[in-house]
């Protein structure tokens, strides 16, 4: 009985193994590479972003790469060309010049940029300037208004360069954290999501020791804002900005203390002298009015 039983078990178990059969996978991939012809901008992006920096620019609307929370439209082809050329010259090149090679931007700059024609409009009618996701992607909005404002550096700073430096700083300090002592300078002064109602003017924010109303949100935003304002404005513009109506010397002193932390951090962690970077950017901005934004090779 025992032997019979054991034998039966053995047979059944071996049958179970034998009954398995593996399906052979098809050699054909479900993903088919695009065969669409490349246009001039596609080639420009490939040669000037993808090859040297390992960056891709998605200028044609792809819904899953945009923000589905909002009603957005694609960017114009012409606006995409402008943005691509502007960003290369005024956004990436200064870092190359300061660090001496493209390696810095190649390692740290977000790998994907997306272009959107309009800004994200919230139901209360306010707009979002730009967003970044996890250090991998920056979304740039409002490109369809770019042509009309393409030689205004204050416009370009507000919508694009400020956003790019701000988001880039987030990525840098996610890679190498900034000193925690920075958090204590404004300490409990950070107000979180009510930043836009707490400080309604730049002057009021500066008086409280924040470079902008948004900087009062939290320490990481403060850090990124300090960096972005410092490098995008010339020394005189920066001073004038700090002295906006409503600001106070006490507030400016706090900002200067925090700025020193940012400068030290950039110098020690990444070897970037923010004053040299600013000077390089300003030298390029001086040529903005004659910079060719629309011609592709």
């Amino acid at each position, binding site marked *: 009985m025992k032997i019979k039983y054991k034998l039966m078990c053995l047979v059944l*178990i071996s049958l179970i193994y034998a009954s398995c*059969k593996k399906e052979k996978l098809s050699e054909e991939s479900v993903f*088919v590479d695009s065969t669409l*012809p490349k246009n001039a901008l596609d080639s420009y992006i490939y040669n000037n972003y993808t090859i040297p920096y390992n960056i891709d620019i998605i200028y044609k609307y792809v819904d899953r790469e945009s923000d589905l929370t909002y009603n957005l*439209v*694609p*960017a114009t082809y012409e606006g995409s060309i402008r943005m691509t050329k502007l960003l290369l010259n005024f956004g990436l090149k200064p870092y190359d010049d300061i660090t001496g090679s493209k390696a810095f931007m190649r390692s740290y700059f977000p790998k994907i940029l997306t272009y959107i024609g309009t800004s994200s409009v919230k*139901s209360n009618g306010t707009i979002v300037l730009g967003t970044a996701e996890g250090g991998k992607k920056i979304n740039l909005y409002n490109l369809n208004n770019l042509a009309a404002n393409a030689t205004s550096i204050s416009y370009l700073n507000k919508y694009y360069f400020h956003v790019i430096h701000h988001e880039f700083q987030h990525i840098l300090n996610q890679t190498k954290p900034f000193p925690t002592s920075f958090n204590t300078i404004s300490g409990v002064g950070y107000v979180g999501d009510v930043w836009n109602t707490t400080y309604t003017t730049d002057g009021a924010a500066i008086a409280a020791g924040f470079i902008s109303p948004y900087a009062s949100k939290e320490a990481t935003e403060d850090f990124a804002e300090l960096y972005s304002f410092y490098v995008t404005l010339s020394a005189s513009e920066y001073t004038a900005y700090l002295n906006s109506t409503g600001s106070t010397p006490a507030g400016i002193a706090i900002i200067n203390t925090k700025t020193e932390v940012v400068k030290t951090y950039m110098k020690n962690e990444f070897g970037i002298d923010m004053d040299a970077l600013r000077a390089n950017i300003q030298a390029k901005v001086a040529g903005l009015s004659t910079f060719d934004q629309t011609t592709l090779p």
Partner: protein
Amino acid sequence: MKKQYLLITVLAILLFTGCDKKKDRIFEDSPAARLNASIDDAYSALNGKKTWVFSFYPGANVEYGGFNLFPNFTSSVDVTLQADYATTTQSSTFKVYAGAGPILTFDTYNPVIHYFSLPGYYTGNSTGLGIGASDSGMKGEFEFLVLSSNQDSVMLKGRKYGNVMKMKSVAADQLPTIITNYKNANTKFNTYRGFAIEVNGKTLQGVPTLATVNGTSRPNRSFTLATAPSLTVSYIVTDTGIEFYKEYTVEGVKVNKLTFFAATTQYPLGYYANGNSTFKMVPRTTTTP
């Protein structure tokens, strides 16, 4: 002993479930191959005929009615667009890609179609001239699931709101004439402010709301009829008359298409009627009869 039987039963069951579960495919080709084939079909239809009349319905509930767009798919990436409401021809790009089926997308900005997707913030609702909420506008789509495609017609379904729309092909050399006819029909229609619907011995009133589209005041191609229960119909104005968004049943009469008939003494502005004249839509330039 009982335990042993139990074990044998369990093993026997395992033996059955251990069988290869591979199911025979219903279709011969793999899903990926079929999807790619349907994308190729869509491309060959769009590029084969090139010039189309696109009955475009923005809105979550087709509340603005339809607009006639005239796409010309000049290459596998380029498209030019004209429309009954616009004065210029605008070029941009398009693509058909794989999603939950082949998806047609107008992926760089073209004011002719993307106008409808702009939030009201951009189309001037703050000045009271634009349409729709500041964050969503007219809710027009620019990405469509291709439901079917052939050389005569392409059926599309908006990805966000699901409006089903049709593109029908026209001969390229006739397109300028066709566009002129559509524009004339719509310009005339834009002067109307109300309609008397004569159906089954009854007269119903259709009064559309006005909207400013691209700077021009225009009655929405939609109104609500006081039937029981009330019925909101949406339609589009074509070169020959009116086409409804779908087949509606009004007072027992099924309608999907009306033809325009020129002015008579009884109908000084002309009228729209179905094939056997059981449904008439009589325009007037006032909201009240």
